[in-house]
């Protein structure tokens, strides 16, 4: 991408006058600008907050690229409000405090009209206070644990009820093999913890007994799965059909599946339903032993719709890599970006408050069919697909929800939050509104 130093405005010179502080600032201003400008006028800045180095670069680099593509495309369509869009790319380097710092930079120094970014929950948690303080707009494209509803964040990924619950429904169903025992295996961080908490309650409500539910957590980057896999094997030989629900974080998956394969556990014996394994991860695995293993997403590259085919074609053209995969978070960004464009057009301004209000109710077609709608709790309506891994590293869809599933910020399956909803429309205008006591928790004390 073309990198140009920012042009110093009068105010910046003033800052420069201030010896050392100016140093820090001009540094901060040295944000990389990827210009794709054709339309005239003061450019509208779009922040891209994805790690380009460090451990998360694996997943996030792609999202940066897709954003650049979408922005370039929008500019070629004449920009927004007749003004060019300008991407401001920064690298939080997989360092959570750095996420907060860069977010502050994007909002207060670059005055970004919207920011697209974050992958891990912790990075989102780390920038959330910044976005609320500076009243920015963040589009968060990854499936996550829910239990959050900020006015300044739009959650374009799946909430647990848009991925985890339908996935388990499938496993319980006849088609899915009618599992009676469940092993919930995950990496020890917030997303698996919450998801499993929700799933355990949900499974119990489906009449699964405690002794038929096994929960296990492993550290990040766990590479020696021998013991755990053998435990799963033993657990699965209880005479009841057993399924594994995996919230294992990206990197640890390869050794996990390898161990499964080697210990002779095939998808037909004990199917593994993964929530964090997408096309991108499969690209890094030898998928032969994985054939038949499952994943639940709201998007699969293999789904054949005109929109999706076109998107993939454009992606390959833009990256000049005819094999480069697409995945669920990319679609989330696609939807989020187009919704934002609509909202800005509708509001006729990039003013954050106006845009935030305009966002609710915006409708944008999914790449995989159906219409995504921005709900009052800043989550989307999404279709849910179950895919089986094929030996060509793609998923083949074996099941989908008949209707679109509306995202729930707060899970009804967690005691503390079953009465909470998010609704940013007036008069409620609250992220954690208790429908029973009719009070807004955050406002009650603030």
């Amino acid at each position, binding site marked *: 991408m073309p990198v140009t130093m920012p042009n110093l405005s009068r105010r910046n010179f003033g800052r420069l006058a201030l010896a050392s502080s100016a140093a820090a600032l001009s540094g901060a201003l040295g944000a990389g600008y990827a210009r794709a400008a054709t339309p005239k006028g003061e450019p509208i800045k779009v922040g891209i907050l994805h790690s380009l180095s460090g451990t998360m670069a694996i997943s996030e680099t792609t999202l940066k690229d897709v954003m650049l593509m979408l922005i370039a495309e929008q500019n070629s369509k004449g920009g927004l409000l007749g003004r060019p869009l300008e991407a401001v790319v920064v690298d939080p380097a997989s360092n959570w405090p750095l996420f907060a710092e860069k977010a502050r930079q994007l909002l207060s120094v670059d005055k970004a009209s919207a920011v697209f970014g974050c992958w891990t929950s912790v990075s989102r948690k780390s920038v959330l206070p910044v976005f609320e303080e500076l009243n920015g707009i963040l589009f968060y494209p990854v499936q996550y644990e829910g239990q959050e509803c900020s006015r300044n964040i739009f959650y374009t990924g799946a909430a647990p009820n848009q991925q985890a619950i339908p996935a388990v429904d499938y496993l319980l169903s006849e088609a899915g093999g009618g599992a009676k025992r469940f092993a919930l295996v995950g990496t020890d961080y917030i997303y698996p913890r919450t998801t499993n908490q929700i799933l355990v309650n949900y499974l119990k409500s489906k009449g699964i007994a405690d002794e038929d539910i096994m929960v296990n957590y492993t550290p990040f980057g766990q590479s*020696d799965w021998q013991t755990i896999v053998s435990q799963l094997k033993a657990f699965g030989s209880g005479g009841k059909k057993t399924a594994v629900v995996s919230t294992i974080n990206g990197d640890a998956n390869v050794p996990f599946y390898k161990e499964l394969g080697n210990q002779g556990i095939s998808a037909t014996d004990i199917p593994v339903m993964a929530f964090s394994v997408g096309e991108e991860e499969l690209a890094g695995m030898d*998928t032969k032993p994985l054939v038949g293993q499952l994943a639940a997403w709201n998007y699969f590259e293999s789904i054949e719709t005109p929109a999706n085919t076109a998107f993939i074609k454009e992606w390959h053209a833009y990256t000049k890599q005819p094999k480069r995969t697409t995945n669920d978070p990319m679609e989330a960004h696609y939807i989020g970006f187009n919704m934002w464009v609509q909202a800005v057009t509708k509001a006729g301004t990039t003013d954050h408050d106006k845009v935030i209000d305009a966002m609710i109710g915006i409708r944008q077609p999914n790449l995989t069919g159906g219409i995504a709608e921005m709900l009052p709790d800043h989550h989307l309506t999404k279709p849910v697909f179950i895919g089986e891994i094929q030996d060509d590293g793609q998923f083949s869809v074996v099941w989908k929800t008949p209707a679109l*599933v509306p995202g729930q910020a707060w899970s009804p399956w967690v005691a503390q939050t079953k009465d909470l909803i998010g609704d940013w429309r007036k008069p409620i205008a609250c992220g954690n509104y208790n429908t029973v006591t009719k009070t807004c928790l955050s406002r009650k004390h603030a």
Partner: protein
Amino acid sequence: MRKLGLACLLAALCLGGGLGEASAQADDFSGLAGPQFEEMSASITALAAHGGPQGDAALQALEDRHLFSGADGALFIHDGAVCQNARTGEAASCPEDLKPVRLNNRIRTVLAGAHALRELSSAEPDVRLKAAQALYARHDMTMLPALEQAMSTEKVPRVHEKLMQAHAATVLAQAPAEGTQATRLKAVGYLAEVGGLEARGLLANVAASAVEAPEVRHAAQRAVSRIDWHLRVWSVLQNAFYGLSYGSVLLLAATGLAITFGVMGVINMAHGEMMMIGAYVTWLVQQGIRMTVPALEPIAILIAIPVAFVVCGGIGVVIERSLIRFLYGRPLETLLATWGLSLVLQQVIRSVFGPTNIAVQTPAWLSGSLMVGGLDITLNRLAILVFAGLVLAGLMFVLRRTTLGLQMRAVTQNRRMAALMGIRTPKVDALAFGLGAGLAGLAGVAVSQIDNVSPNLGQSYIIDSFMVVVFGGVGNLWGTLAAAMALGMGGKVLEPTIGAVSAKIAILVLVIVYIQRHPRGMFPVRGRGIES
């Protein structure tokens, strides 16, 4: 909102498989063409039962994913070049718009069953044995008649044995009916002998079921407790194996350090990156071979071993000549410099191969596992265990029996004297460091078979390997071996009880404390010699 969720979930339960309508003509085959998984499984069972040779061919093709469906339910077997009509078997020209017939796990299961049934009537005893084994694991009611039929005709004792077991399992898997007591009791006896997790599962169900006749139930309970005892014994051995294999990975990762750090006193923080490069080399070799001589693909991994050693060794020499040699006698500076180097190497790999994981293939002969009694020994782990042993032995040989080894030890003991005796110390240093790096490369090859290969690979091993070397006692290969195995075993013994993370922490703390009591590790090189 909640309502909607409920609705979709109800729908989920009633609705199976994709959308679309069944195909026009209705025969045993038509199910395969349609997208409805129910119909598909129906026709599979039908074809398996009375599909004739064409049916078998079709099913086989389906398993091999060579079966394609065309417009209006036409079916084709398209195997590379040749293309034939699945129904008739006569050669045909495949139309353009062929779609591979999709499978899902349920279909695969049914298919496997059908396959087993087909093979029951094979002429090959071994094939029949495999089939019986499969049916034993499936214990599916519908197979019962076929099983009994096979049992009556089977001549080969071992196959017959297996069939009996399969029959027993199948019987027990069903709810008890009137007058089946005797058979069930016999079945319990059978499974008790077979043992293993599978049998235990079935027996446990029997033992727990209320409708079961008392004596059957008690027999089952006794059987379960006996099997449990066996399993416990085996699980101890199993853990021991896990410990060994984990230890062997640590050992491989550490031997290189044992040279650079232990013998040369150079702290090479880029050691992990050398492993990483080794893994990438493995991948490159595999890709190269796939493109040039696909025939050799299965042994690509073996070819990768020397290549990785040479490449990493070479890089090692370059590093030593261009960086390390300026820092001798300043281990802590070396530490910083090599750490910087590791950052650069990572970023280089990231820029060249991209930040994402790459898929290193595991050859067929390295995947899967072999059962030794109740022991489940995974082949790749076994291979690594052996490999580690060979590497260590080789290293011992080099150090003890070759001039390089002799010179290395001479240089480390008294550099000046060695130089005076005409040993070209710079050359020795370079070679020694190269050797260390090369060993890291070998470790990389091994690791590529069990772990994911990304630019971050090295990071996850560096601390562990240093722990091993220090814990074992610097400059002592036997110490390294002992330490690696001790840490591996320790980790694996603790893991089942306190969990993976706590186990790792516990090990670290133990090592820290141990080092502080015995600052020179388990096998210190003692005496006045090294002091003065």
